[in-house]
């Protein structure tokens, strides 16, 4: 089970995690992108943290939608509309909810990932954040069907995201700014897959610390 309070703490934690990892994400992005992913994500989630003050007392759906709208208007790069759509769609399937079961959280994550796929039109092995989301949610579903609880399923999801993130290193980019580099994009870890891993890891850490 994930409570509304945990969702709020997850987003707050994510704001600090992204601030701490700003230089790391920007370094990854300077190798194959336009060196702004760290700055963009840190700026976007700093705005989310400010916004949370006024929406934390509402419901999970509303909190996630407000997060999505804030990201769409403050991140600046492609990750703004992509993660923005993730949270908007996640919010649409959790409207008026105060807590999420292991099934509900799975539904929220899937709705969000489908939003990212629809918006960015990336498929597996394009070297994008989708390469972290797909194995993460496959691992989550397997654990959920096997009867594991939310934290255990998320632990599998985080391991899946981490493996997917590392597996972007040998790939050649087929989407976004990195695709302009052709074969020169090979050998670098994708920044978007990395921020996706950090996002899921922050959710797991929030559940495990409370």
């Amino acid at each position, binding site marked *: 089970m994930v409570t509304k309070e945990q969702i709020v703490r997850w987003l707050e934690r994510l704001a600090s995690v992204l601030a701490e990892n700003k230089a790391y994400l920007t370094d990854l992005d300077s190798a194959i992108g336009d060196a702004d992913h760290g700055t963009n994500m840190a700026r976007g989630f700093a705005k989310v943290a400010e916004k949370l003050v006024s929406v934390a007392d509402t419901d999970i759906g509303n909190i996630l939608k407000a997060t999505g709208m804030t990201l769409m*208007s403050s991140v600046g790069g*492609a990750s*703004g509309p992509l993660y923005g759509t993730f949270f908007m769609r996640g919010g649409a399937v959790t409207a008026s909810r105060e807590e999420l079961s292991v099934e509900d959280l799975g539904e929220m994550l899937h709705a969000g990932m489908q939003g990212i796929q629809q918006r960015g039109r990336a498929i597996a092995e394009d070297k994008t954040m989708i390469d972290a989301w797909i194995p993460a949610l496959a691992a989550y579903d397997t654990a959920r069907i096997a009867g594991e609880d939310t934290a255990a399923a998320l632990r599998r999801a985080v391991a899946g995201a981490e493996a997917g993130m590392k597996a972007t290193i040998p790939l050649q980019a087929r989407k976004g700014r990195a695709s302009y580099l052709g074969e020169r994009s090979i050998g670098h870890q994708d920044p978007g897959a990395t921020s996706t891993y950090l996002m899921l890891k922050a959710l797991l850490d929030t559940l495990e610390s409370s």
Partner: protein
Amino acid sequence: MVGIVIVSHSPLIAAGVKQLASEMAGEQLRIAAAGGVDDHTIGTSVERILEALREADGPDGVLILVDLGSAVLSAQAAIELLNEQQQAHLILSNAPLVEGAIVAAVEASIGRPLMEVNRAAEQVATLNKLG
């Protein structure tokens, strides 16, 4: 008259393209700029695009011109937030930003309908400038 929205990562480019297109088509042109995350930060913002859509909106619809990358994704995300009736009189154009805006501005100013304004703007992509 068809309205035009200019979406660019740079606030200066968006404002500059607006200025250039207005110069070509006259003061009455309905054109709005949505550049940057804010006036100092490179990037695109769904909120800024929605504001520009409101500003350029009118009975004849709005053509949206974008630079590239996140401008496309942010424009699509903004369109998705509108209702079906609003979406029905918007076109997200594949035209090149600067040349497309000039052609669209001229076509809009002589009262051409939305589909034709977009067609003319998109055709600029194959224009041989060097003759």
